[in-house]
Every structure is written in structure tokens, then in C-alpha cells.
């Protein structure tokens, strides 16, 4: 953040440079295409067993967490979800439907730990908590829409466990690993994350 203030940083679009937005767009379309494929796979698994469909849930939180770790701006998770959903619009039969709820619920949940630490802590643990939080919220949404109606309690708890694990590993851990690997290539040198990764010669 450019100015150091004591107040809570607000998610203001003005703070986002064109570079931030376009880097977000590029990562969003890459994962948007992957997720459009994962959608079909998850749909198939949902039909076989809802528990299995949830395995990939963390991948849905991955691009948002990556952008948060790269640009380090308030609202990164939510905005990235918006762009991912807009970007994959022509490639998924679900169309605009995810656009209504996903950014607010998934993005908002993943945003929480960063908000609580006032966007100053971008270590692995915060990203993992973000992925886990998004997993919890997705689980609650599936519950609310009756995906588990008719299933036993043990089954529902096991599904929640997979949600949490996937959110932590495919969401938080993978985001951190990928961003660090990309930063090592040097393309993120103009971002804070790239500056940290640079080695003194």
C-alpha cells in the first residue's frame, strides 16, 4: 500500500493499476479455462458421489489467492472470482449463474483472513486459512441448496473434511508454491512479492 494509515484498508478499485488488473485477467483466463474443464469432471463426480466432486473445490479458490499474494490489494479474491467467472462464461453451460454468488461467498470467505490481518501478512498460513474459510462457505452453500438432503450425518462430515483439506492444499498451499515459483522466474519483479524473492548478488 502506498500510504501507511491506521484505518482499515478499503477495497478501492482506484488503487488497482492497469498492470494489476491485466495480470489478474491473464491468470484468471488461464484458470478459467482449466476450471471450465474441472466443472465437467466435478459434475460427473457429483453424480457418482458428491464427496468426490468436492476434491477439486480448492482449485476454485486458487486464482483468487494467487492474485492476492501477487498484487496484495484489498478485494483481490473477490475481484479475481468476478473475472474468472466472466472469462469462462463462453465455455461453461452454467453461464452467468456462478457470477451471482461465487465472488461474494467464495471470494469473500477467502478474503477474510487477509482482512483480519489488515493486508499486511501474506504468508503461507494466511493463504491456507483463506482456502479453508472458502471451503467452509462452499460446504454451507451446498448444504443450503439441499445437495446433502437424504445423506447420512457421517457422509456430510466426511464431505466437509474433504472441503477443508482441498481448500488448504489445492487452495492455500498450491497458491503459495505457484506464486513463489513464478516469482523466481523474475516476471513479478515489479510486485512486492518479486522484490522479496530477489537474491542479493
Amino acid at each position, binding site marked *: 500500500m502506498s500510504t501507511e494509515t491506521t484505518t482499515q484498508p478499503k477495497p478501492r478499485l482506484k488503487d488497482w493499476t*492497469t498492470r494489476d488488473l491485466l*495480470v489478474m485477467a*491473464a491468470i*484468471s483466463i488461464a484458470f478459467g479455462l482449466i476450471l471450465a474443464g474441472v466443472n465437467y469432471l466435478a459434475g*460427473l463426480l457429483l*453424480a457418482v458421489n458428491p464427496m468426490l466432486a468436492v476434491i477439486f473445490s480448492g482449485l476454485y479458490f486458487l486464482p483468487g489467492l494467487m492474485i492476492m499474494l501477487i498484487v496484495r490489494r484489498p478485494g483481490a479474491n473477490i475481484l479475481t472470482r468476478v473475472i474468472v467467472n*466472466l472469462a469462462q462464461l*463462453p465455455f461453461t453451460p452454467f*453461464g452467468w449463474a456462478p457470477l451471482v454468488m461465487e465472488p461474494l461467498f467464495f471470494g469473500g470467505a477467502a478474503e477474510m483472513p487477509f482482512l483480519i490481518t489488515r493486508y499486511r501478512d501474506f504468508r503461507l498460513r494466511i493463504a491456507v486459512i483463506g482456502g479453508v474459510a472458502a471451503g467452509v462457505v462452499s460446504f454451507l452453500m451446498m448444504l443450503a441448496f439441499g445437495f446433502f438432503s437424504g445423506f447420512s450425518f457421517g457422509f456430510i462430515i466426511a464431505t466437509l473434511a474433504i472441503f477443508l483439506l482441498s481448500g488448504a492444499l489445492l487452495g492455500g498451499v498450491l497458491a503459495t508454491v505457484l506464486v513463489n515459483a513464478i516469482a523466481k522466474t523474475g516476471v*513479478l519483479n515489479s510486485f512486492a512479492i518479486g522484490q522479496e524473492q530477489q537474491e542479493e548478488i
Partner: protein
Amino acid sequence: MESLYYQNDSLLHRLNPLSKIVATAPVILFLALTTAPWTPSVFILFFGLITVIWGRIPILRYLKTVTPLLFLITGFLIFYPFAVDPARVAGTGIAFQIGSVVVRWGGIIFGVATALRILSLIFGTLLFVLTTDSSDFIRALVQQWRLSYRIGYSAMAAYRFIPMLHSELAVIRAAHKVRGISDRGGLRAQYDRARRYAVPLLATAIRKAERTALAMDSRAFGAFETRSYFRQLTFARRDWVFIGAFLAVSLALILILAKAGLLGSLVVLQEF
């Protein structure tokens, strides 16, 4: 990956993209909460007919889009009768029995209802997806619903990155091959390849994105609150007529179903 959008000039194509959402969203939300098999079936037919007739989508093209989805939902029919909580369907008759596993009619109806419910939601969104150019949708979001044009144009730039990602992937693949890394193999090799491709692909994408951002900045992108548009979308009278007619017919269908006693209970009322 191929776009689902079918380019044409039909009634549905000419509508403002937002009016298609305003019309279908309440119906789709309602369908998401239904539990009986009849309501989704009626609306699957309703959505399908409107899309094919008013969207002038060739029937073969529509079937081509829908077939993989039909394949997806057969799983519900096969698996759900076994997975359903026995206490829930205890009262219903036994359909068949494999060893100690009893499948009751209640379970089969539950599977059918879930499959139809999900299919009806997808048919509802397909009405939009097949007949709407995504760039037009973003333009409408920016022009009518006051989405920040900086976000809108970022999403549109994302579409332009798709061919770049394809060609970059080909370059990376060739580069790995020329260095003697095998391009074949099973699941394990697939995973290894995804790992090898991910970082260089994302790194080039970021580099390209930065250059695009520079080009846009140098043309004063985002310098002003408002901007002018090459394609101006409007919310015309036909959009209101479409929304009104669509919702009226949907409501009539729901009322007829309710009158006939085929509506069933809604999921929210059941859970809590």
C-alpha cells in the same frame, strides 16, 4: 476449448444480455429449490423450446451441447438410489434387492428428481450462454449496470489472451520436447507435465499481461470516470416485453403444477 456461443441473428440474440438474466434468474432460483420431478421436467421443455425456437439454434447443435450434460446426470440415476438415507425412504416399496442392499422406489424418485433439478438449471442458463456473445454481456454490464469499465475491459482483455495461451503452450511443449522430455505416458506423466508447464505458461502470461497494460496505459485507459463505446447497448421495450412475458408464463406454469398437486415441497422448507 470451444465457445458454446452460437452466432446468429435471432430474437434472443438481439435482446440485451441482461434482460435474459433478469427473466431467467428468478425461475432458475426457484427450480434450484424444488424437490419433485415434475416441475424441472416442465421447465426443461420450456427452456429448451424457447432457446431452439426464439434463439434459432439448430436442433443438432443444441443436442450436441446438451448430450454431455445428459451423460453427467445419469450418474445421479445410478448412484443416488443407493446413497439415499434409508430412514428417508423407509415407507416406500422395494424396487429391487442386490444381496443385502435394498433399493426402494423413494430412492429412485429421489435420484430422478435430483438429476432433473440440476438439468433444469443448466437448460435455464444455456438459454443465455448459447445466444449471448460474452463481450456483449460485459458491455451491457458496464453500460447498463454500472460495472466499472476497468473491470469490464480487463475481462474482455482476458478473452484476447486465449490464443496467446494456446500458442505459448505449444512453444513450451516444443521446448520441452527438443530437450528430450517424453511427451507420452499415463496419469503420472500427465501430472508431471502439468507441473512442468504451469510455471512457464503463467510466467509468459504475466509478462504479456504487463505489456498489454503498458499499451493500454499509454492510450490513457482508466484516466477518466466515463468513456465512449464503439458498441452502445440499450435496454429497449422488447427487453421489458420479453422479461414480462417470460416471467408471466413461468408463473402460470408453476401455478398449474401447484394446482395439479405436482409441485412438491421446496428444499428450504424441508431442511429447516
